[in-house]
């Protein structure tokens, strides 16, 4: 169930920027080896096994991926798909190990793994071959644009679904308290008047990826003065050195201390989602797949006791969030039969397979046919059309150069720990912002 937040996923997807800006070559094999890697001809007598590891294994998607694998094996004699599904806690280590051991063909390199692997040349550039597949033809223009925009002609991953942040709101509680649904971060804070025993306003995230919360508020206060990295203003300077960042972080701390459960200092993804559907917190910012979780664990959307809203805005009326493929499949540079691996990815990225996957797992579709499915436009999902149409909710691609990617990766855990230290009073917002500016605004972080 648990999943890294979009900031971390962003760091991963965005590592493509390493390509865009750094021109880092992932191709280490000789031309002859490359040609051989792309020309395997599996037969019943000489079968080929494709080892594939997923990051976000879970009951909503793993059985489906396995059924796709069996179906593909049936239609492609000589190919065997070996799906590895570690627990999400083990995923980062397991995927990293398999990539390093050159013992896997397809990986789902979420989080920081993508950045690391791209920078280290461990993922294959599949642009030429992927563009020739049937799946590519049916990708949404946005998906194609994202793939090419961030990699300048090279493609290191095939998106398997979009995650977009929206607010989940317990409308029944807000109505009962006579409090309007928050539209700004100030509103979130002011809604504290509705709190009762063990019923708080905001589902804060204080454990892993806690600093994504700071980014939400700082972005809202800085937008539209943000560049595509999400970590810098338009002039390329770190966002953490701005006066807006200080105002925003002070406000977030007030929300955390006065309008969120103290227990949220240890909340990660599952706890904040549970906090919402059990009624401990009435306002949650999360990705689209949470719709399904709330419907299953609280109530169907149609009952009207909860609703979706856009994420809160800042004083200028703006908000901003990273939009990109939250999950993606990549073929490793070490794969001996890249064409076979790509064949399977081609199959699962086509509809109806992808549409089934997106609906079951609750992620935004990457194909045009699935995107036209009314399922993704109605009910709770309708909010995403509203988000897409709102010019004041900025969507940044998160393209970052290799230096900033490396700095962000190294600073990630520090940023999270500092968030907790803010709450415990071990550090002040001024201290934290100074440290973050030093970590991410240093000369060796500028690409």
């Amino acid at each position, binding site marked *: 169930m648990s999943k890294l937040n979009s900031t971390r996923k962003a760091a991963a997807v965005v590592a493509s920027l390493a390509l865009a800006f750094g021109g880092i070559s992932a191709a280490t094999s000789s031309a002859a080896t490359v040609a051989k890697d792309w020309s395997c001809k599996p037969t019943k007598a000489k079968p080929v096994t494709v080892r594939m590891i997923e990051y976000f294994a879970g009951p909503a998607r793993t059985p489906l991926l396995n059924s796709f694998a069996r179906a593909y094996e049936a239609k492609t004699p000589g190919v065997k798909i070996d799906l590895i599904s570690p627990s999400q806690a083990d995923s980062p280590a397991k995927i*990293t190990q398999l990539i390093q051991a050159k013992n896997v063909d397809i990986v789902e390199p979420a989080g920081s793994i993508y950045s690391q692997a791209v920078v280290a040349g461990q993922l294959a550039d599949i642009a030429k071959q992927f563009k020739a597949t049937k799946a590519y033809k049916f990708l949404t223009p946005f998906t194609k644009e994202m793939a090419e925009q961030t990699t300048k002609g090279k493609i290191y991953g095939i998106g398997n679904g979009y995650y977009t942040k929206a607010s989940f709101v317990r409308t029944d509680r807000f109505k009962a308290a006579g409090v309007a649904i928050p539209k700004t971060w100030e509103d979130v804070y002011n809604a504290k008047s509705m709190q009762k025993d063990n019923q708080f306003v905001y589902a804060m995230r204080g454990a*892993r990826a806690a600093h994504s919360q700071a980014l939400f508020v700082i972005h809202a206060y800085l937008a539209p003065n943000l560049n595509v990295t999400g970590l810098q203003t338009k002039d390329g300077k770190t966002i953490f050195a701005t006066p807006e960042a200080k105002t925003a972080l002070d406000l977030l701390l007030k929300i955390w201390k006065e309008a969120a459960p103290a*227990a949220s200092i240890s909340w990660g993804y599952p706890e904040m989602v*549970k906090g919402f559907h059990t009624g401990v917190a009435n306002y949650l910012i999360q990705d689209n797949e949470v719709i399904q979780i709330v419907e299953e664990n609280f109530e169907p959307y149609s009952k009207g006791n909860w609703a979706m809203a856009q994420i809160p805005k800042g004083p200028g009326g703006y908000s901003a969030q990273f939009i990109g493929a939250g999950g993606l499949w990549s073929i490793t540079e070490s794969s001996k039969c890249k064409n076979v691996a790509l064949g399977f990815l081609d199959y699962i990225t086509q509809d109806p397979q992808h549409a089934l996957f997106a609906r079951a797992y609750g992620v935004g579709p990457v194909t045009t046919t699935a995107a036209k499915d009314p399922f993704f436009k109605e009910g709770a999902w309708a909010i995403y059309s509203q988000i897409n149409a709102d010019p004041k909710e900025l969507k940044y691609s998160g393209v970052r150069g290799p230096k900033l990617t490396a700095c962000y*990766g190294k600073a990630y*855990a520090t940023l999270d*720990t500092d968030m907790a230290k803010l709450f415990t009073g071990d550090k002040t917002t001024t201290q934290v912002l100074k440290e973050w500016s030093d970590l991410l605004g240093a000369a060796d972080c500028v690409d």
Partner: protein
Amino acid sequence: MSATFQGTTRKRPASTSRMLKALAFLTPAAVMILIFVFYPVIRTVQLGFQNFNLFDQTNIGYNGLENFRKLVEDPNFVRVLKNTFIWVFVSLFFQFTIGFGLALLMKKKFKFIGIYQGLIFIPWALSGFLMGLVWKWIFDESFGVLNDALLKLGLIDTRIPWLSNGNWGMAAVIIANVWYGVTFFVIMILAALQGVPTEMLEAAELDGANRFQTLFQVIIPYIRSTLILIVLLRIMWITNFPDLIFGMTSGGPAGRTHIISSWLIEKLTFDADWGAASALGLMTMLILFVFTLFYLMATRLEKESGV
């Protein structure tokens, strides 16, 4: 002379054959140990002196004692050592005393003893990380069953911030660890108790020793060497047991429940700093080695002095 010569020539092939046989049987195990024990240790030593961060793989190379310097200068270092000490010795005290008590109870025959033994042994069969996740939900301040139960029983008025406060957090992880580790002592001490000769206990009874005298003057001295060994083993295992902490708090809040091994995992998994993690691993190894030497020396001196 001739007989000796003949005897020697007869023995040589047999001895060589035995040696070859022994080698054949030992080689697989030796190879496994080399691959799975010695190679990782050698690699850890190597990495401990390297700048090896997965976020920055273009800048990998030897950096001397830099990893160790950074660790020692890290503001979390002293707290992590202090937490490790508390985690090990508080857990050990309760695990040992409760485990000893339960083992004494289980030595006696009573109805449904099989079911009782089964229940006692369950924690040992479960994954530490999984149990950490279960305890995390139990201790959760807002929707955990423990706070609910304490509130309903009227024992508390406000919810205890079990996992959101550093001190309560340490208490919570230690409670979980005591629950988890008691089983080990029950199993080991029960086995040792079953080895105490009945005649010795009967003799003590005939001499008029009461229960405490029998326990402290007969039973404990008899199983002393087992107790020393299992306590030493347990200290090493608890030091290297981050599973529960990682499942429950991930070392939080703000790093306040980190012990040395959970901090190592954080360095490895989240910071992707294999150099620092390896250096920390080497420091742990050194600390445990020195501790073991002192512990064994102290227990030997104690035995020799007859205390």
